């Protein structure tokens, strides 16, 4: 019988409204006891004095690039990066090569995840064949193969009629749609947020209305069709107000996330033609950042994600207009949340943890993200006071492209337990 005892940590389990010093006893992969001063014997004892113990983090949006671009990331390296960040479950985007528009790719990802055996990986399928926006994918089969949602992330379904059919069809089989909201004709050749900084740099800007219009389109169609819709990486004032309006009108079928870089940084990161700051949605101006933080405080946002997007160095060494979009984030997401939301005084730690645990779990309908007796023992343990400087050379991810490079963050993952098995101890990954 495999047993683990986590002693004397500050347990933050928002779903069960727990926030206090106690012990957790894990038996055979499940939480067996939670209490103060547990007297039990265990195979492994972790002293969590001075540390914060939370349910393992859940990230709804990562790119692991396998199959197809294993030079950028693999399921193994992506899993190791997740462990470093205290992320125990991820949802992988389907824009691999080939795209996950058929059951073979979904089954391959699940098989590789099982072989690697480090974290829980939940694949998604595509909305349209090849993400080409032409014909619908076989969503029912994708779902029965193990996809937790369908998405054309990386692009948006441009044709409103096709998106409507996709939502109606997804509703038929109770499939969750995840939308990357962008209006291609408005983005045009835009490579960063359109504003004074893009004007100073002489770079083509992506107007906020490109996102606003697409968010409105997705929300209206979801309200008409009743499909379950999750809005990926929202970044504008307009998106925040559209989501708030939808929720105020009682829409139960719509959820929304923010990627952590979008409340932490602004478009000024692009100065000096810093291609690490190039991503979609773009880092926006301070007024958008303020609106996002207000929306998080108001409870409008359901999840915080990374949009972890690894690239090889040559793809970022290009002129800014030609460089690849995206930044890695799995090894920094908890620290970014802690630094820019909790330490900055906007929300308390439990609120931030909720947005990275049981709330995203509810969106993809998995029984994870909490630590009550009987729950899966996916547990992350953080030193929330530790300051560190981000150096991508130390990353487990193959992607060294990180917008937080050289920034000082507060909070670091110490230990990670998944399914009752210790996977990382004192920042060292074990068993793989």
């Amino acid at each position, binding site marked *: 019988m495999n047993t683990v005892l986590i002693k004397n940590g500050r347990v933050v389990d928002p779903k069960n409204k727990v926030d206090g010093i106690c012990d957790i006893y894990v038996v055979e992969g499940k939480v067996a006891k939670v209490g103060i001063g547990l007297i039990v014997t265990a195979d492994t004892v972790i002293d969590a004095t001075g540390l914060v113990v939370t349910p393992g983090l859940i990230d709804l949006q990562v790119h692991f690039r396998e199959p197809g671009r294993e030079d950028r990331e693999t399921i193994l390296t992506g899993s190791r990066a997740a462990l470093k960040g205290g992320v125990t479950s991820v949802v992988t985007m389907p824009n691999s090569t080939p795209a996950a528009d058929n059951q073979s790719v979904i089954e391959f990802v699940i098989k590789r995840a099982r072989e690697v055996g480090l974290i829980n990986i939940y694949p998604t399928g595509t909305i349209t064949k090849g993400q080409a926006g032409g014909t619908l994918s076989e969503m029912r089969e994708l779902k029965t193969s193990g996809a937790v949602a369908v998405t054309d992330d990386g692009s948006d379904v441009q044709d409103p009629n096709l998106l409507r059919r996709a939502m109606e069809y997804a509703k038929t089989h109770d499939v969750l749609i995840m939308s990357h909201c962008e209006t291609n004709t408005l983005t045009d050749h835009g490579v960063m947020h359109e504003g004074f900084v893009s004007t100073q740099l002489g*770079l083509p800007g992506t107007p906020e209305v490109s996102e606003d219009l697409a968010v409105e389109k997705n929300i209206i169609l979801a309200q008409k069709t009743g499909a379950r819709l999750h809005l990926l990486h929202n970044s504008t004032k307009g998106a925040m107000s559209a989501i708030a309006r939808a929720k105020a009108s009682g829409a139960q079928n719509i959820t929304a996330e923010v990627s952590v870089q979008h409340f932490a940084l602004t478009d000024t990161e692009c100065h000096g*033609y810093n291609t690490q700051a190039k991503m979609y949605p773009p880092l926006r101006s301070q007024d958008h950042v303020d609106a996002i933080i207000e929306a998080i405080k108001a409870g409008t946002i359901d999840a915080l994600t990374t949009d972890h997007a690894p690239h090889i160095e040559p793809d970022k060494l290009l002129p800014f207009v030609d460089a690849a979009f995206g930044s890695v984030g799995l090894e920094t997401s908890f620290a970014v949340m802690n630094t820019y939301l909790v330490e900055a005084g906007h929300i308390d730690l439990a609120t931030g943890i909720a947005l990275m645990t049981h709330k995203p779990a509810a969106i993809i309908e998995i029984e994870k993200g909490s630590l009550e007796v009987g729950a899966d023992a996916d547990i992350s343990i953080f030193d929330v006071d530790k300051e560190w400087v981000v150096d991508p050379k130390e990353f487990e991810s193959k992607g060294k492209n990180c917008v937080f490079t050289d920034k000082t963050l507060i909070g670091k993952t110490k230990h990670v337990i998944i399914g009752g098995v210790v996977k990382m101890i004192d920042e060292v990954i074990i068993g793989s």
Partner: protein
Amino acid sequence: MSTEITDSLTIIRAGRDVSFFDLYSIDQVSLTDFGLIFALARGFREAKTAKLTLCKGHTQVNCFFEPSTRTQASFDLSAKHLGMDTTSVSGSSSSAKKGESYIDTVETLDSYNTRILIVRSSEAGVPEVASRYVNASIINAGDGWHEHPTQALLDALTMLDHFGTTDLNGRVVVIVGDIMHSRVFGSLVRILKKLGATIKVAAPATFLSAGVEQFGLTAFYNIEEALIGADVVYALRVQEERGASGFIPTLREYSKTFGISEARLNLAKFDAILMHPGPVIRDIDVHSALVSRHPQSRILAQVENGMAVRKALLWLLADRIDGKVKTCKRM
């Protein structure tokens, strides 16, 4: 003869250096730098095509990732007049074309012990980023929609010479045309601000880039209103090749609403000057009769000043008196 010129330039220089090693943005240039550059440029203008040896033994490579005729010729002749050996390479800064990063290209050119690298690219930021990887001094000869700093230097020299002043305080400069896609505007607005001018722009809203007022200027949709009281009328070319197409219905309608005609020029002050970075699209940007021979036109003076300013800059960057050397990331 050339010894006398060298002596007089050396006296003007008076042992001074500029505060930068590369020039990719007017943001880098201080007011003191302007004074030094303009004083030397006037000296070089006097010297016309005299063959000098101020930069003898140094090499300049004109690295044009985007084709150019005028600017490349101006930089090349300037270097040759100073005694430098020059060569030119062309190509693309987008590695998609041949698999090599533009950074590899400039590092290779730098390894010829090149002293000056003139870089032009159709993508913004290429000269600035490249400057971090080379020992040579990089001069931006135009990058995308961003900047064209030597154009702004020659424009400012042209204005200051006309007014006979050392700054532009109290002068009203009206810039007309395709603001959004203009690297000339990018540098001009920065230098005008530094020299204290009052800046107005006149263009259809489709040609105004986001937040452009934050440079510290006033935007007008009505050109007549903008031109009243102007000291300088600066017309930009409608750059169809940089995406202007689709931003206005036709060149015909643009010419009617924003083209500089004699009647419009008369709305400016009686001694106002007309400027244009070239090449002029006659009868679209500027009425043909105003282009070169009109008494208020400074368009050819601008070109002459271009050579003079570039020589001043090349000498200052290639031959530092303080002996300071640039340190680059690669070292």
